């Protein structure tokens, strides 16, 4: 496997939130790498910790958050140890972020050209005139029609999709190494969403940015991601390449997520919902946090936390089902269908796949 260079290495990250009710253990030992030029999707339900994880990369945690342990290495330096002043040099220049709601992430009182030019003046020390000239180029790049005529417009004069393009222009104007996109298209209509996703892919190819893409929409993940990490209750429970996660998932939670979405060929009948709700992280459950909602839970799941088991060189899952002594289980029908497809996809390349033995 050709290993690209790691841009960010997160190790054993633990984050608590102090609340009136007690300490919410939002991130419970999360480790992952982000490689150069790749798109890593982090999927999970609200409260699973996907947004908190990425906010910690930006040094943008809420005041009641406390990093209890771990490290976030970026260019050989730990971001966690950096001061707010140092972070201001990184934020927007090396690591940029696109937020969910384009209606609230722009300054309503500032002309959009100036908003795009601002990071250039701040981080690169450009004069206003040069910065505005580059902002104009950026507007062209993100596909705003008549950029010369619109550079002095205010955000309210643009539609939601156009505003998100402007937000992307601001995020990318310094050619950051890392772009964090937190549900960047959730507030948009599907046709506009498709345009924005295409734009992001196109720009990624041009400037070779690494993208961390946070979303709960598995359809979007399937189209955007090179690799996927699935989060549940403050932990990563499974990660692998996009094909491995979609066609050969191993964790019952990943099964549940994939199963609860109607696909093109879902027949009418009942969708397989995941029963219950995510656990309360004030008092996280012992063992596998998903056990209480899983049809596949075993006794050990309530006693001991599962380690990551290796499925392939690029694919790991934290479920006791992968333990050699675990009983063989049959995943839901939809998952079996996906796994068959995976086996068919693998055949030409490698006839013997270690994952096949784990089915």
């Amino acid at each position, binding site marked *: 496997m050709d290993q690209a260079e790691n841009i960010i290495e997160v190790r054993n990250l633990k984050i608590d939130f102090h609340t009136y009710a007690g300490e919410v253990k939002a991130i419970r030992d999360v480790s992952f790498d982000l490689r150069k030029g790749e798109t890593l999707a982090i999927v999970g*339900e*609200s409260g699973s910790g996907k947004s908190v994880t990425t906010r910690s990369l930006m040094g943008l945690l809420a005041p009641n958050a406390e990093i209890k342990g771990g490290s976030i290495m970026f260019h050989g330096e730990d971001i966690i140890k950096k001061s707010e002043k140092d972070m201001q040099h990184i934020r927007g220049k090396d690591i940029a972020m696109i937020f969910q709601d384009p209606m609230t992430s722009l300054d309503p009182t500032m002309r959009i050209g100036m908003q795009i030019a601002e990071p250039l003046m701040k981080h690169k020390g450009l004069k206003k005139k040069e910065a505005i000239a580059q902002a104009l180029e950026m507007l062209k790049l993100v596909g705003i029609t008549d950029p010369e005529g619109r550079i002095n417009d205010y955000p309210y004069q643009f539609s*939601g999709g156009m505003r998100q393009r402007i937000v992307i222009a601001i995020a990318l104007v310094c050619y950051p190494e890392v772009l964090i996109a937190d549900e960047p298209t959730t507030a948009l*209509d*599907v*046709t*506009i*969403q*498709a345009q924005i996703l*295409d734009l992001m892919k196109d720009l990624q190819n041009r400037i070779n940015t690494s993208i961390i893409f946070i979303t*709960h*929409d*598995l*359809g*979007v*993940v*399937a*189209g955007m*991601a090179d690799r996927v990490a699935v989060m549940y209750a403050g932990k990563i429970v499974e990660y692998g390449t*996009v*094909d491995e996660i*979609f*066609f050969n998932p191993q964790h019952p939670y990943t099964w*549940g*997520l*994939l199963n*609860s*979405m*109607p*696909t*093109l060929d*879902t027949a*009418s009948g*009942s*969708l*397989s*919902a*995941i*029963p219950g*709700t995510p656990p309360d992280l004030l008092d996280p459950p012992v063992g596998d946090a998903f056990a209480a909602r899983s049809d596949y839970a075993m006794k050990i799941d309530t006693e001991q936390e599962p380690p990551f088991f290796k499925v392939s060189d690029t694919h790991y899952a934290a479920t006791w089902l992968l333990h050699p002594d675990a009983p063989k289980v049959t995943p839901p029908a939809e998952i079996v269908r996906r796994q068959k*497809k995976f086996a068919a*996809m693998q055949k030409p390349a490698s006839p013997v796949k270690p994952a096949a033995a784990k089915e």
Partner: protein
Amino acid sequence: MPDERKKILEVRHLKQYFNVGKRDEVRAVDDVTFDIYEGETFGLVGESGSGKTTAGRSIIHLYEPTSGTIIFDGQDVSKLHGKAQMHAFRRKIQMIFQDPYASLNPRMKVKDIVAEGIDIHGLAKDDADRTKQVEDLLETVGLNKDHSSRYPHEFSGGQRQRIGIARALAVEPKFIIADEPISALDVSIQAQVVNLMKELQIKQNLTYLFIAHDLSMVKYISDRIGVMHYGKILEIGPADEVYNHPLHDYTKSLISAVPVPDPEFERNRIQVPYDSSNELADKKRRMVEIAPGHFVRCSEDEVAMYTQRAVDAGLTT
């Protein structure tokens, strides 16, 4: 044939304009005609601003329509007079809203939220009966009676949406308008709520108008789908047919943009662009039945083109 089923709702040439006669006149719903049959789920899809929510609100008479008729259960809604008739109408038709956080009064207990309709319509004999009804409703939607004395903030989004559904069911309606009922919920919870709605539909013989922008979920829950754009319905047909063999260019474009949770499919996706200039050209158009039960809004000279498309797709001969 679908025509033999009983129509519960007939919408004819519904127009809902705002700021009529002013410079900023908005034609939110502009000449919309469709029927909904008893016991079915009719999905109304469209992008934001297409008028789908306004159409739903006009039907339940939250707005006074600019023109057109809405016949519900054989009765012309615009001819309802006085409080008593409006009361009777609103007992038969209820609404579930998009935002489970905004649609429940934070200062009311769950039992009073659910019982509000029971109180207004005088459906409970006494306090004990009221309590019993509320508890039964909570159980129906998968909550339990202990929940009845709590406040909305103590519940998750999915649970709140269940409370909203219990409230709608309290007056034993025949027809429910669900406006983006699952958009604000997590994927795993969406499936729970959709399954609950389907189950209730069968048990209580409900008819749904399901308004949403999530096409895959709409296709899954609906028997028939109507596609709205710029205040007009452009295509109506059986859900599978509209999804798999769309006839109108706009529908084709919309469906081609839906992300599918399958990386292989996504790698080969071809998105169909849509040019609305033809749709906006000032032509006289009406809904024409191109294939059995499959309507497209078109002008006389476009009928042949759409018919050919339907023939090519094997929808008609």
